[in-house]
């Protein structure tokens, strides 16, 4: 009920804004001698548990840590054993008072999977994480406040299909820092960009340098390739399976097969050559070319010794 009232109030405010449109825009700077506002309006108590299974690579670990630093509403947990069932995570979230979860899973010491889940009741999505670049790379030159709230930017493709819009809603709830979160800063200096290309979601994080729209990348950057969308949290009925998804194992197998084919082709070529060349094709008399000789100038090797030309 209370929420509804608040929405009405904001509507009125926005109406007023429309009346005197853009006439008085407030100075964007907050002066430090202003008395700090007491943050009492922290209503959205979303918390995100970010943790991983054992056996993730160093790069994945750094990515996880980067996400933790950028999301002040996140909580950490020690690594989970690989043998534990995934639905245990729901209980972990409950114990940590978290309603969202980002769970990183390493396989074969090289592949990284990420689960994004709405914790007690679902839905959840499993992604393959590709092309990971962390924030500590030196080519990412931007920097932002540790706990400022990000603007979330989405591609229009997210509204075209239902599975994308489901993921979008999940990302909004996970990645947006709640307003007036006690650990958050009241400034806006970075943008999380989610865009869809090639049936994958590409994540970028940019710093807003100036308010006229010049940006610098902060990092991390990664690509999420959706695999499956489940109804429940870490399980339940499957709602969507990505038809474009190729598992990294299959991908590697294809690459190896490509190389192997080169060898197999060569062997086949050799065999076919053998079948085509069947020894002697026509019986010849070897004594036929007894009197066929060459001139001394054309002789090479040992044959040179047998030839000589008398001096004139």
């Amino acid at each position, binding site marked *: 009920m209370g929420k509804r009232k*608040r929405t009405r109030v*904001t509507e009125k405010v926005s109406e007023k804004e429309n009346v005197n449109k853009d006439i008085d825009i407030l100075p964007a*700077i907050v002066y430090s001698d202003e008395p700090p506002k007491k943050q009492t309006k922290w209503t959205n108590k979303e918390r995100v548990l970010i943790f991983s299974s054992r056996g993730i690579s160093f790069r994945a670990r750094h990515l996880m840590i980067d996400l933790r630093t950028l999301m002040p509403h996140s909580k950490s947990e020690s690594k989970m054993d690989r043998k534990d069932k995934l639905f245990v995570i729901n209980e972990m979230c409950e114990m940590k008072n978290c309603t969202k979860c980002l769970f990183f899973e390493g396989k074969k010491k090289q592949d990284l999977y990420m689960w994004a889940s709405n914790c007690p009741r679902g839905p959840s999505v499993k992604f393959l994480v590709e092309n990971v670049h962390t*924030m500590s790379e030196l080519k990412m030159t931007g920097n932002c*406040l540790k706990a400022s709230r990000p603007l979330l930017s989405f591609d229009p493709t997210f509204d075209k299909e239902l599975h994308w819009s489901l993921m979008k809603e999940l990302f909004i709830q996970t990645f947006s820092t709640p307003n007036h979160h006690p650990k958050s800063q009241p*400034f*806006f*200096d970075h*943008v999380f960009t989610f865009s869809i290309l090639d049936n994958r979601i590409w994540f970028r994080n940019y710093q807003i340098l100036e308010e006229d729209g010049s940006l610098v990348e902060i990092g991390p950057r990664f690509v999420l390739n959706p695999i499956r969308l489940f109804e429940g949290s870490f399980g339940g009925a499957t709602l969507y399976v990505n038809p474009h998804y190729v598992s990294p194992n299959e991908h590697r197998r294809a690459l190896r097969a490509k190389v192997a084919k080169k060898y197999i082709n060569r062997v086949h070529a050799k065999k076919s050559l053998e079948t085509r060349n069947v020894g002697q094709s026509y019986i010849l008399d070897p004594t036929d070319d007894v009197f066929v000789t060459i001139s001394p100038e054309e002789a090479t090797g040992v044959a040179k010794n047998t030839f000589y030309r008398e001096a004139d």
Partner: protein
Amino acid sequence: MFGNESSDSESIESDTELQRAFESGHLKPGLNVEVAPKQHINNVAGMKHKLEEFKQHLEWIERLDLTVDPSTGVHKAAEEQSDSVADDDFRREMKFYRQAQTTALEGLAKLHKLRIKTRRPEDYFAEMAKSDDHMKKVREKLLERQLAIERSEKAKKLRDLRKYGRKVQQEVLQKRQKEKKEMLDAVKKFRKGQKDKLEFLNSLEPNGTEQKPGQKNGDKKHLQNKRRDFKNKKFGFGGQKKRGKYNSSGSSADVGESFSIAVNQKRQSQKTGKKHKPGKPRRPGKSRRQKLKNRQR
């Protein structure tokens, strides 16, 4: 029986099919396992229901999400082939950048409309996502890259210059050779009596100032070497070096320019050239003064 027969005929048919497939190359030798095509689930109704169920109806300020279309206006044509964009690093990143840019602009405008201040003051310090040490490293790296670019550009320029210089030198040499050849030809012709006079001599003689282009600055160059000049002057150039330092009658008589008998062998009074002032009494020398003293006693 009847059923059995029909199954046999079926199997025969499938056999012929298989053989045909093998001939055409669709079938490989070995164990062939039938693979069922993958089932791709797309439960639209379920997803719709789920979306409605877990959607939070929060204000925008809680969520801060924006859906923007970066491919508007000029860039639309470039966005048409989205497959190529995914492979082309630069264009892909440009697309993301533009998306983020529009989001930033729209989002900040929206925030300003809600009367929320966005920029932080200059004197507001708080913990940053990246540490100062890290940012220092980043800056160093940037500087290094810039320097490397500058250095390579400089080297390139130098290389070009050298290449050009070499070309010029070659041209000069060729020209000189050509001239020499021409001159020799002319001399030869003159000797044989085919020609009356030598042109290059004529061009030289009437005004001595004119020179051959090749020897243009030959004298100048010689003059330029001051070090050599000085050494020649000091140690001599050609001729006998032995006994060079002996005295001779000439040298012993020569007292140099700085010494002149007329000046140095003069009497003191003459040398100084002091003239007695008329008003003052002259002070006699010491011996004379003493003599005078004795006489007074």
